[in-house]
């Protein structure tokens, strides 16, 4: 029973931080709350036996993505302050859309019998490394090409100094 209590505690903070991400009035605060969400997700990964993915999550997301997001905010807002407004509107329609997804999904989840927990051993870096460079090698190589394409695409998009003149 105790793993469920630990999971519940982390999940409670996780969902509260996620609410702050979508409700905060300051964009910088939203990003910082998102970093809390990502770290707590890594904790949940580790609780579920995915220790390697928990590490990857912290390094890639909270190390890389959050920094990138803060760069994006500072490049597209006023540079003299960290008070960047993050307005939102249509709360009723947004909540309706979210509920229209949530209600059927939750009822489907709780109506399904997934069988008893098998309690698989934790998946370590060794398992993942063997799987990536073995049966999933083609997907791995395709992913490296995709990352290169994304990098070149981002440079091409962001370098254009005046897109109106088609330089």
């Amino acid at each position, binding site marked *: 029973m105790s793993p469920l209590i630990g*999971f519940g505690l982390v999940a409670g903070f996780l969902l509260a931080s*996620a609410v702050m991400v979508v409700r905060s009035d300051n964009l910088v605060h939203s990003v910082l709350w998102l970093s809390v*969400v*990502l770290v707590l997700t890594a904790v949940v990964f580790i609780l579920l036996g*995915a220790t390697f993915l928990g590490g990857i999550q912290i390094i890639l997301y909270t190390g890389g993505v959050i920094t990138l997001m803060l760069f994006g905010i500072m490049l597209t807002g006023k540079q003299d302050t960290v008070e960047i407004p993050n*307005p*939102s509107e249509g709360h009723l329609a947004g909540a309706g859309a979210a509920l229209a997804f949530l209600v059927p999904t939750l009822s489907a989840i709780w109506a399904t019998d997934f069988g008893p927990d098998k309690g698989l051993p934790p*998946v370590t870096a060794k398992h*993942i490394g063997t799987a990536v460079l073995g049966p999933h090698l083609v997907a791995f190589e395709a992913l490296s090409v995709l990352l290169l394409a994304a990098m070149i*695409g981002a440079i091409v998009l962001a370098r254009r100094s005046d897109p109106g003149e088609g330089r």
Partner: protein
Amino acid sequence: MIHWVLTVAAVLFALGIYGVSTRKNAVGILLSVELMANAVNLNLVGFGMRAGDSAHVFVLFAIALTVAEVVVGLALVVLLYRTRKNVLIDLASELRG
């Protein structure tokens, strides 16, 4: 246990939907998309408790794809800022007929 993991992931995804449909700042929308991608990863790790290695490799690839998506998304936001001098998406309506 897996029911609770899936429930938390579904609530996270719903919060992402709420954020995408209410935010006006393009970076704010990108943050909500991140929230949704995170919920999907959580879902996959939850099923990985049963499926084993394959689910974890899938999550690894999904994380890398999300990072690529953020890079291109932020490049688009910077481009939008250069063209319009703001990133509020309801003001960028030039394609409206």
